[in-house]
């Protein structure tokens, strides 16, 4: 059974801080790891990583995948109150009808 574990469960920081969110996984026939952001509504897609060592960047957000150690990190620099959300990590495997297995998420709160 595929498994995704995220840490920490919650995090409180102040604006301008840099945060690192962690995601470890166990999956058969790994294909990709995905990050989502969820505010008080539906999850929105951030990144998909397939190859190890490739860093994805989008503005202040970046993510790295380590397929040898089976983990990924999501970095957010110069945090803003608008970054407050639950960040979800998910994995998918080859030949799985593109099913995603999600972690429980990290609740990030950015204080002004």
């Amino acid at each position, binding site marked *: 059974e595929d498994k995704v574990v995220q840490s920490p469960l919650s995090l409180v920081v102040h604006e301008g801080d840099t945060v690192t969110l962690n995601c470890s996984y166990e999956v058969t026939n790994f294909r990709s790891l995905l990050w989502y952001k969820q505010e008080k509504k539906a999850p929105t*897609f951030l990144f998909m990583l397939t190859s190890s060592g490739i860093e994805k960047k989008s503005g202040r957000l970046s993510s790295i995948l380590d397929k040898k150690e089976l983990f990924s990190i999501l970095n957010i620099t110069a945090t803003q109150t608008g970054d407050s959300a639950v960040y979800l990590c998910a994995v998918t495997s080859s030949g799985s009808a593109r*099913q995603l297995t*999600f*972690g*429980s998420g990290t609740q990030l709160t950015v204080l002004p």
Partner: protein
Amino acid sequence: DAGITQSPRHKVTETGTPVTLRCHQTENHRYMYWYRQDPGHGLRLIHYSYGVKDTDKGEVSDGYSVSRSKTEDFLLTLESATSSQTSVYFCAISGRSDRSSYEQYFGPGTRLTVT
């Protein structure tokens, strides 16, 4: 944003009654999914579809059934609702026919309360 809608957005129903939730997409995506989201459990897959009339069970399928008679619509039915099915239900889509990407796009969600 992917064109995906869910109806109803909110519903309160009584234990033992049947409930049907609808997911509608305008993006011609092949794959459709139903999830439930509960505190402490994250998103859990209920059922999914990989084509018209092609469906399969997910992690938490007991008490739920689905149907997909056309590409655009994926229905989730609770045959006899129970209080444990109180949750937020999300539909998601993936795999537009001209792309091989694996990311899923989510609908706005349906908040279901079973009293």
